[in-house]
């Protein structure tokens, strides 16, 4: 028995004279220990004990009154007889002295004398071991069902000291669950824990230290120090590996104590343990401490530790391997040679049966091979392909994670899996989430060699039953058409076949896709009549808008364009912007036919429409048309820049970050970890940092937008700590800013706010936005001069750029001050192609109409 009083820091007075055998121990000991060791604290001592000690005493007394110690040794047959014997402790003065206290406590835990809790209590204090065990089991069962059985705490606790390991585990389980609600009573269990941590059986020692760490009560922490120190040096590796994790538990609860006692140093030494599992758990614990408190420098990979980890890698369990691999992935090699060495040692893990080990190994090699030379790099890239393919045959959920990760790897290295297209063909019984993800990957892999195979497959999918999947397949056909020029004609033919199927959602999606094909390749006007035949079936704004755009764009080639558009004018609502532009285009191309129509539409748009964007746009058209048709023509009908791709891709900066997060949640969500982790860690500073990084990123890619942003920033000093996003909609009219909700929800980008806020063009742009507005005017002027297409924009980024301009035009005061939004928003809006199907194509439409304007 240990003298805990000394270490606990309370009840010191008595601890020196007489070691306070924990009273809880006494209950235990009166059953388990020989009589000589049975020791009761003298009543006088109880008074000077810390209040928590006094608590400990009470159950003992209750217990003592009820039971005869002999019954515990006696076999079942003798029990009945023994029951009537007087109990020695009844004569004990302490019982009488504390009778009133006992009554009080009993009152506190009083429960009805009938019902389940009463029965359980009766069982828990039964004289028969089997009844007690059964009652504990039933208590746990009730606990699982969500019933509150915390009232039984003292009664369950009495069963803690038992030779039956099963029963002990159940009591421990109960303790872990309700410790929070009864922190004081938990102390009762301390002595048993301490004693168990010195048990000859390593299983018991490990169980004790494991459970102690799970009882997350401050008072318990005080007693953990000693057992933890001993178990960390235990002879049994099983105990050591449990103790290693326990350090992480303790650190979570009380970091300073962990540091003071040098547990971190002990853990660091344990990386060199002879047992691989101890190594793995020590690394886990250190990694966790490191993440919680980077200033501790808990996990420093040195050449020595690296060597030890690589040694343990081959020997430990699959889970241990993952731990070590994760740690290696976070480590940046000191030089090329070290990176080479790591790759060499980790690559064999590609052959492990556990897919998550494989994925972690891929991550390590992928990160470290960047430092090694060309040939070796290519050979590892090649080695990586077969294991990645094998991942696709694991359980659907694991497969899903693998596919999301493969998606990332493909964005980074597009040609690693070009030969493996067939593996990603969807099986009929695949869950929908897998099918969608597989299509995504197939489109990325597609090249001119395998495109035919892919198209046949996609066509097959487009005829399946699941609507979302069919749409995705149709969209994929469009993406392939735009990605691979040589296959466009085949794609168009497949799309025409699908349109002929008359399945309404397939037809609508196909029309949206056709519109994108028109935006890239000329020469497919021949299919327009076929598209126009479907007019009556189009009930989605997206598809209607796409068709209207096509009609407007090719009005000169469609003899009845006027009639078609007139038909749409009747029911216009969501796609009104499109109709407006299309009618103006029609008028410019065939003024004779459509004068009436254009007047009617402009009239309706300026007089009847509630949407300020549409009103303003209509006014602009109107004024342009009435001033000089030639200028109007050059603005509205100017040439469009062809689109580069409709496949969504992540920003290079974000992609690089996500590659380091392979196989974690971030790689599944395709978001950086700080975007989805708990609110507590999601602070404004992080958002700010991300925004600034994003801005720098932009500066590299897109000089014009960055210039505009920089102008805005220099004009308006951002108060520190203020959300940078407020710049997005500087409010001149005194209306509430659109981004008043702070931080914005993921689905909403600042843009939407701007589009919806009624802001007038006439508003003067004062002070801070002035520079930006000028900047914008410059941009506008230059692109206008260069016949429409913004000449400086890079092919990858036209969407974002046009978007900027468009907003600038729609509400000048806002567009100029546009700031690159935080990553979240970028994510939401940038990959227009696929991240949000509905929103994306309407956004594209906006872009077009903007170009029409110019």
């Amino acid at each position, binding site marked *: 028995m240990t003298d805990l009083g000394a270490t606990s820091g309370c009840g010191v007075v008595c601890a020196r004279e007489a070691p306070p055998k924990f009273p809880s121990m006494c209950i235990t000991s009166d059953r388990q220990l020989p009589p000589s060791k049975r020791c009761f604290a003298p009543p006088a001592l109880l008074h000077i004990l810390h209040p928590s000690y006094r608590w400990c005493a009470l159950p003992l007394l209750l217990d003592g009154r009820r039971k005869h110690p002999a019954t515990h040794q006696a076999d079942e047959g003798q029990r009945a007889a023994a029951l009537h014997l007087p109990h020695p402790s009844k004569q004990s003065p302490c019982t009488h002295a504390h009778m009133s206290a006992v009554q009080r406590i009993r009152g506190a835990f009083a429960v009805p004398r009938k019902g389940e809790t009463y029965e359980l209590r009766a069982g828990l204090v039964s004289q028969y071991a089997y009844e007690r065990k059964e009652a504990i089991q039933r208590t*746990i069962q009730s606990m699982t069902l969500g019933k509150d059985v915390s009232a039984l705490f003292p009664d369950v606790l009495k069963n803690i000291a038992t*030779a039956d390991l099963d029963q002990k585990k159940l009591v421990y389980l109960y303790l872990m669950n309700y410790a929070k609600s009864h922190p004081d009573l938990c102390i009762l269990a301390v002595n048993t824990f301490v004693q168990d941590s010195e048990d000859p059986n390593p299983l018991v020692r490990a169980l004790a230290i*494991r459970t102690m760490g*799970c009882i997350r009560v401050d008072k318990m922490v005080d007693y953990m120090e000693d057992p933890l120190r001993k178990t960390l040096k235990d002879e049994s590796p099983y105990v050591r590996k449990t103790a290693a994790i326990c350090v992480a538990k303790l650190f979570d609860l009380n970091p300073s104590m962990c540091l003071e006692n040098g547990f971190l140093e002990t853990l660091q030494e344990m990386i060199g343990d002879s047992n691989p599992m101890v190594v793995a758990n020590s690394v886990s614990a250190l990694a966790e401490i490191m*993440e919680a408190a980077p200033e501790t420098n808990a996990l420093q990979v040195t050449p020595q530790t690296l060597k030890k980890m690589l040694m343990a890698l081959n020997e430990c369990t699959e889970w241990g391997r993952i731990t070590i691999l994760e740690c290696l992935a976070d480590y940046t090699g000191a030089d090329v040679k070290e990176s080479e060495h790591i790759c060499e040692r980790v690559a*064999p893990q590609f052959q492990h049966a556990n897919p*998550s080990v494989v994925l972690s190994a891929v991550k390590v090699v992928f990160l470290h091979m960047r430092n090694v030379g060309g040939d070796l790099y290519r050979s590892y890239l090649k080695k990586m392909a077969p294991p990645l393919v094998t991942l696709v*045959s694991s359980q659907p959920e694991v497969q899903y994670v693998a596919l999301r990760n493969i998606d990332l790897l493909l964005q980074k290295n597009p040609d690693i899996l070009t030969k493996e297209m067939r593996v990603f063909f969807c099986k009929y019984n695949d*869950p929908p989430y897998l099918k969608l993800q597989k299509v995504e990957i197939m489109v990325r892999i597609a090249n001119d060699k395998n495109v035919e195979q892919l198209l046949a497959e996609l066509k097959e999918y487009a005829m399946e039953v699941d609507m979302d999947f069919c749409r995705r397949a149709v969209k994929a056909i469009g993406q392939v058409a735009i990605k691979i020029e040589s296959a466009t004609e085949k794609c168009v033919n497949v799309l025409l076949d699908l349109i002929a199927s008359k399945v309404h959602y397939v037809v609508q999606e196909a029309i949206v896709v056709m519109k994108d094909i028109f935006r890239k390749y000329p020469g497919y006007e021949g299919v327009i009549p076929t598209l126009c035949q479907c007019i009556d079936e189009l009930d989605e704004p997206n598809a209607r808008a796409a068709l209207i755009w096509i009609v407007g764009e090719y009005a000169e080639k469609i003899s009845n364009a006027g009639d078609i558009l007139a038909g749409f004018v009747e029911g216009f609502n969501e796609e009104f912007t499109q109709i407006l532009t299309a009618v103006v285009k029609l008028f410019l191309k065939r003024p004779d036919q459509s004068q009436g129509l254009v007047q009617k539409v402009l009239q309706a748009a300026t007089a009847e429409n509630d949407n300020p964007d549409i009103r303003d746009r209509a006014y602009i058209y109107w004024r342009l048309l009435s001033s000089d048709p030639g200028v109007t023509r050059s603005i509205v009908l100017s040439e469009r820049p062809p689109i580069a791709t409709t496949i969504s891709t992540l920003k290079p900066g974000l992609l690089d970050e996500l590659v380091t997060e392979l196989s974690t949640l971030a790689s599944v969500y395709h978001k950086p970890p700080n975007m989805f982790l708990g609110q507590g860690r999601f602070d404004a500073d992080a958002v700010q940092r991300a925004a600034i990084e994003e801005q720098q990123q932009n500066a590299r890619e897109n000089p014009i937008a960055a210039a505009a942003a920089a102008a805005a920033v220099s004009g308006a000093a951002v108060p520190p700590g203020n959300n940078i996003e407020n710049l997005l909609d500087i409010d001149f009219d005194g209306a509430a800013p659109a981004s008043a909700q702070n931080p914005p929800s993921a689905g909403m980008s600042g843009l939407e706010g701007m589009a919806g806020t009624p802001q007038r063009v006439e508003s003067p742009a004062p002070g801070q936005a002035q520079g930006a507005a000028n900047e914008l005017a410059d941009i506008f002027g230059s692109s206008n001069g260069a016949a429409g297409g913004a000449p400086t924009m890079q092919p990858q980024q036209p969407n974002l750029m046009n978007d900027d301009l468009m907003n600038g035009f729609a509400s000048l005061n806002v567009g100029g001050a546009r700031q690159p939004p935080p990553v979240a928003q970028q994510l939401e809006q940038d990959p227009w192609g696929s991240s949000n199907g509905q929103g994306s194509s309407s956004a594209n439409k906006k872009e077009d109409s903007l170009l029409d304007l110019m």
Partner: protein
Amino acid sequence: MPVAASAIYFLNLRGDVLINRLYRDDVGGNMVDAFRMHIMQTKELGTCPVRQIGGCSFFYMRISNVYIVIVVSSNANVACAFKFVVEAVALFKSYFGGAFDEDAIRNNFVLIYELLDEIMDFGYPQNLSPEILKLYITQEGVRSPFSSKPTDKPVPNATLQVTGAVGWRREGLVYKKNEVFLDIVESVNLLMSSKGSVLRCDVTGKILMKCFLSGMPDLKLGLNDKIGLEKESQLKSRPTKSGKTIELDDVTFHQCVNLTRFNSEKTVSFVPPDGEFELMKYRITEGVNLPFRVLPTIKELGRTRMEVNVKVKSVFGAKMFALGVVIKIPVPKQTAKTSFQVTSGRAKYNAAIDCLVWKIRKFPGQTEPTMSAEVELISTMAEKKSWTRPPIQMEFQVPMFTASGLRVRFLKVWEKSGYNTVEWVRYITKAGSYEIRC
């Protein structure tokens, strides 16, 4: 970090909690309510196995009539978490003797709690190997030597096992007869277009091993795979023997196999666990011998009649035969009446899965039985959409045949006592997802 699961829940299909175990206190107790509200009771269920609600993420998996949900609040390793659940279920199954469902959980909840305590600590997976856990977590419960003398041997031994260098094998095993059974089980995955061209075809094979060997034997396995043979002939500077060699696309091994050695020497050497285990898995896409060809013709005669003709050709050796052949031909939901003519086996209409099911118990090689069926449909109200035909599916087993042509060349056993072992090898090819579009 590997997983760092905050909590694990077992729910039944209605969302009642069967088992819950909190590993960390960074998630509230109401997490399971969030799951119930936002995932189980919405259409979200089944759309994605990873979902974020608030600051927490939920990973869930359905196994028979139970949902297993893991809640995390950190950027956890998802692949590892799912694999952990898969392994845990396998472990529970081996304890329950097969079934894992709501009843089994309710009946064994004490055991499950005990196992959950052992296989995960503070959200980090620990040892999940059933062979080892069974040493010290027994159904009846191990008696602690609390009151007995500290010189208690067997249990401390068990903990050495839990963490030992050869963590998967006990020392001191003795068998009267030393035997090894090898089963090579291949499943053929096929996707064939209606025109008979192969869209996708691969074989996933596994080598199952059952060991009854004394002591600590060292085993070495040789297959007729290309890389292994080349390496061997290199080492022995002797030309490769003629004969069929197989190119394995990828192999994965049980953790007992020394991966570094495989990587450098291309030999499969290992100290096997006792009893049954899966030694390796492999994948082959080139040179697959398809055991069956299916030639379907389905004609829709007007709106109410269909004619289905299916010919199945077995292309393996005439002396071999396939067992348990089942061919499922999908028909529309509104099927009313069917009539069959078969040259072999029996056929019937199964309304539950909307399929014509044709079963042939014993199917000899080099034969081609046919089935022709007439299907009458109820003419329903004008359905705009035509019936989209799901693929024909096929099940079979062909003993002593490997679709890949893989053979075991040798299995060497070394043990310091130098006993003789008897090795048994069996081959079987099964259908994986064997689909033919029609």
